[in-house]
C-alpha cells in the first residue's frame, strides 16, 4: 500500500524510548502532547493513515473510500476482520461511536474542532444532539459521512489521532479512565503502565497489517531528563531519546563521528514565529510590523540554537504543500527597518513587550530578538513566563509580541490550511483564541475558505490559492517567521530501519510500527 517495508527487517526484540514529561493519557480523543501523540498512533488506527516517513495519505482501517462529486459525502468501506485488542471485531458502529464520542462536549476533546465540517457538529457541540447526524452506518462495513460544507482536509482529519476508532464497551467499562486503559486496533497494545515510570507496549499479534510491527515490545521510560537520557543512550541503555538531543550536548555529539553517524536529521512541519499584535499600538501600523520583520537577524538566531533550523520567510514550512518557492520574505536590513519606523513617525523607536515561554532555548532567542530590535531603537521588555501564562496573555490579546517557541505550531496534518485557521484566521482572533496577533482580514479569510472547499486537497490550484493566501498575510506582516526547526534525533547502534522513520513528519519521534533492531 504505497510503502514497501524494509526487506532486511528482523522481527523480535524490544527497544527503550525516554521522555522527560509524563504521559498524561492514551485516550486518542484527548491526548495532544508531544510524547503521547506517537504512542497513540501505535495503539490506535483511524480510517486514514500516512505512508510511513512521508506526508502521503493512504487508507487505514478503511479499505477504500468514495467522495461525492461536490466533495461533501465520504463513503468509507471498512477492512474486514480487524480486531480490537480485546478481541472483538471492529464495525461501522464503532466508527460512528468514535466520532460521536470525540465531538460530544462531555469528552472535552481538544480535537473536537477538527470535525466541525461534519454535518450535525454544531448541534452536538451545543449539547442539542447526542450523535452526529452526518455520520451514518450503512452496513457493518460501510460508513457514510456527510459534511455541511466541502472540506479539502477532511481525509487528513480522519487520519488524526482524534479520529481513532475505539470500542464502546471498553470506554464504557473504564469511563474517564479509558486513557489509562486504552483499547484500540493498533500495532501495539498497552501491556504495563507504572504511573510516572514506564509504559510497556506489546506487539499486537493480530494486527491487521501483514508483517508489521517488527518489535515485540516498546518500553517508554518517562521522567527522564534529556541530558541523562543522552548519557544513557551513550551507555547503550536507551535506544531513542524521545526529546531529541539536548542543546547542551549537541556539539559534543556532533563533534564525535561515531555518535554523529547515529544522528538523523530531517525536516519538520514547524515554524517558529513572533506574533505582532495588530491591536496594540504602535504595532497596529503596518510599517512598524514591517520594520520589525526587517530587523530580525534570523541567521544569528539559528546560530544560537547551534544551526538546528533554517531561517524562515513565510508561515508555511518548506516541506508543506503550498509553500511559496522563491519568496524572499523580508530581508535583514537595519537601515530599511529604520526607514520604515521613520515612515510611521517613530524614528526614535518605542517600547514594547515580548512574551516568551521560559524553557531553554526560548529566553535566549528572545534576548537575541531583543538585541536585534534595540538596533533599530525598539526597546523590548522580555516577559519570560510559564507556558500557561503566555497562552493566557496571548489569548487575551494583552501581549504585544510573543515568541512562539515551545508552543510553536507543529502541523497536526500536512496541509497548508492547518497553519491558517486558528492562528492567523478570524476564528482564532477572538478573546482566548490562539491567533495571538489578533490579525483578522475578511478577504483573506474568504480566500482560505474557498481553498478549503475544494475537494482534492492536493489539487495544484488549491495549493496555489493557499500560497497566495499566505503571501497576502505576509503583506500585512502580522508575524515574523523566524525559522523552521530541523529535527535531530539520535538512535542506538542496534536500531534499524529507514532514516525517514526516525524523522517521520506525522509520527514523531519515531514510527514504532516499522523500525526494528538489528541484533
Amino acid at each position, binding site marked *: 500500500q504505497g510503502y514497501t517495508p524494509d526487506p532486511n527487517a528482523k522481527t523480535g526484540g524490544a527497544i527503550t524510548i525516554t521522555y522527560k514529561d509524563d504521559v498524561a493519557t492514551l485516550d486518542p480523543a484527548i491526548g495532544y502532547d508531544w510524547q503521547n501523540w506517537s504512542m497513540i498512533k501505535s495503539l490506535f488506527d483511524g480510517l486514514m493513515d500516512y505512508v510511513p516517513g512521508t506526508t502521503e495519505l493512504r487508507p487505514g482501517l478503511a479499505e477504500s473510500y468514495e467522495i461525492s462529486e461536490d466533495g461533501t459525502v465520504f463513503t468509507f468501506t471498512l477492512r474486514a476482520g480487524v480486531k480490537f485488542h480485546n478481541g472483538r471485531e471492529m464495525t461501522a458502529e464503532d466508527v460512528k461511536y468514535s466520532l460521536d464520542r470525540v465531538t460530544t462536549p462531555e469528552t472535552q476533546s481538544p480535537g473536537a474542532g477538527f470535525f466541525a465540517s461534519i454535518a450535525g457538529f454544531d448541534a452536538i457541540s451545543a449539547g442539542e444532539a447526542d450523535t452526529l447526524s452526518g455520520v451514518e452506518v450503512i452496513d457493518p462495513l460501510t460508513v457514510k459521512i456527510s459534511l455541511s460544507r466541502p472540506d479539502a482536509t477532511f481525509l487528513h482529519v480522519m487520519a488524526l489521532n482524534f479520529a481513532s476508532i475505539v470500542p464502546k464497551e471498553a470506554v464504557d467499562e473504564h469511563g474517564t479512565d479509558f486513557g489509562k486503559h486504552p483499547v484500540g486496533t493498533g500495532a501495539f497494545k498497552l501491556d504495563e503502565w507504572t504511573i510516572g515510570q514506564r509504559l510497556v507496549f506489546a506487539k499486537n499479534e493480530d494486527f491487521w497489517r501483514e508483517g508489521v510491527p517488527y518489535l515485540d515490545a516498546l518500553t517508554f521510560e518517562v521522567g527522564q531528563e534529556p*541530558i541523562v537520557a543522552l548519557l544513557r543512550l551513550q551507555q547503550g541503555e536507551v535506544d531513542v531519546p524521545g526529546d531529541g538531543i*539536548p*542543546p*547542551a*550536548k549537541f*556539539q*559534543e555529539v*556532533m563533534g564525535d563521528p561515531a555518535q554523529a553517524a547515529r544522528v538523523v536529521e530531517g525536516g519538520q512541519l514547524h515554524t517558529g514565529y513572533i506574533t505582532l499584535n495588530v491591536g496594540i499600538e504602535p504595532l497596529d501600523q503596518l510599517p512598524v510590523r514591517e520594520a520589525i520583520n526587517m530587523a530580525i537577524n534570523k541567521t*544569528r538566531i539559528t*546560530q*544560537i*540554537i*547551534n*544551526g538546528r533550523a533554517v531561517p524562515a520567510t513565510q508561515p508555511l514550512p518548506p516541506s508543506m504543500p503550498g509553500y511559496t518557492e522563491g519568496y524572499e520574505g523580508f530581508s535583514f536590513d537595519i537601515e530599511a527597518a529604520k526607514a520604515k519606523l521613520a515612515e510611521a513617525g517613530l524614528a526614535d523607536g518605542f517600547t514594547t513587550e515580548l512574551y516568551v*515561554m*521560559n524553557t*531553554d*532555548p526560548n*529566553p*535566549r532567542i*528572545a*534576548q*537575541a530578538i*531583543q*538585541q536585534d530590535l534595540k538596533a533599530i531603537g525598539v526597546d523590548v*521588555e*522580555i*516577559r*519570560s*513566563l*510559564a507556558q500557561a*501564562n503566555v497562552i493566557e496573555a496571548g489569548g487575551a490579546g494583552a501581549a504585544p509580541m510573543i515568541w512562539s517557541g515551545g508552543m510553536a505550531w507543529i502541523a497536526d496534518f500536512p496541509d497548508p490550511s492547518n497553519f491558517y485557521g486558528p492562528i492567523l484566521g478570524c476564528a482564532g482572533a477572538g478573546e482566548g483564541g490562539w491567533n495571538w496577533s489578533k490579525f483578522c482580514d475578511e478577504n483573506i479569510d474568504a480566500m482560505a475558505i474557498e481553498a478549503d472547499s475544494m475537494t482534492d486537497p492536493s489539487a495544484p490550484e488549491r495549493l496555489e490559492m493557499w500560497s497566495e493566501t499566505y503571501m497576502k498575510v505576509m503583506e500585512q506582516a502580522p508575524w515574523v517567521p523566524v525559522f523552521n526547526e530541523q529535527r535531530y534525533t539520535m538512535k542506538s547502534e542496534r536500531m534499524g530501519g529507514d532514516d525517514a522513520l526516525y524523522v517521520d513528519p506525522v509520527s514523531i519521534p519515531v514510527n514504532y510500527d516499522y523500525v526494528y533492531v538489528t541484533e
Partner: protein
Amino acid sequence: MTQSLTAPAPPAGALRRLLRRKLALFGLAIIALVVGGAIFAPWIAPFAPDEQLFEGLTLFGEPMPPGGDFLMGTDLLGRDLFTRMLYGAQTSLLIGVVANGVALLIGTFVGVLAGFLRGWVGAVLMRFTDLMMAFPALLLAICLAAIFQPSLWIVAMVIALVNWVQTARVVYTETTSLSEREFIAAERTLGASRTRILFKHILPHLVPTLIVWGTLGISVTVLLEATLSFLGVGVQPPTPSWGNIIFENQTYFQAAPWLVFIPGAAILLLALAFNLVGDALRDVLDPTQRGND
C-alpha cells in the same frame, strides 16, 4: 577572684578588634569587592551586560572559554561573563542581602513577638507560622510572582515573604527560653516596659542565631531567585543575576563549566564572607566572649 579584669574597652575598640581578625578581614575584603563591583559595574565592565558579541560565539554557536578578550569567557549568547557577573552582583546582593535581610527581619519580628507576648497574640502568630510552614514555599512563590508581574522587586518581596518562616520558628523557641531567664525577671521588677525589655535585653541575645541563619540564608535566597527565574517568575532576562546565570547554563556544565562554576563560586564566597564577618562581629560584640580570641 584573680584580678585579671580587662581594661574598659574604648568605643572604637569593636571595629579595631574586628579588623585584627584575619578571617574577618578576608570576609570584609570580599564583601567590599562584590559591593564595589556591583556599584562600579558600568565603569569596570569591559562590555555592556546584554551585548551579544559577534566574536563571543564560535561559528557553531558555542560560548568562548575564559581567557583572551573574555576574562571569564562568554555565555551562550556570546555575552561577556565577567561583565554579567559584575551586573549580576547588583541583583544577587539585593536578593541575598536585602530580601534575605527582610525575611530575617520578618522572621525575627514574628518569632520574638510570639515568644515574648505569648497569650493569644503569640498563639495566633505561631499558628500562622505553622500554616506558612505547611505551605510548599515554592508554590507560594510561583503563585505570588505570577500574580504580580515578575520584576526584581517583586521577586525580592516574594522571597522575603516565603523565607521568614524558619527564622520565626527558631527565634520563637529562643525567645521563650530567654524570657524565662532571671535577668528578664529582674528587668521587670525594675518596672521596665515590654518594649524596653524586648529591644535592650532580648534582641541582642538573638544576634548569634540570626547571624548563622542570615548568612546561610544568603546562598539559599540567591539560589531561590534563580529557581524562580527558571520557573519563569523571576528576574526577567536579560537582567543577569548570579543565580540565573547558573540556572540558564546548568545543563551545559560539561560543555561550558565556567558558566556554572564561576557564579557558583561567587555565591559561595559571598555567603562565606558574610559569615566570617558575622562570626567575628558576634564575638566582638558579645562582651562575654571577650578575651577568648
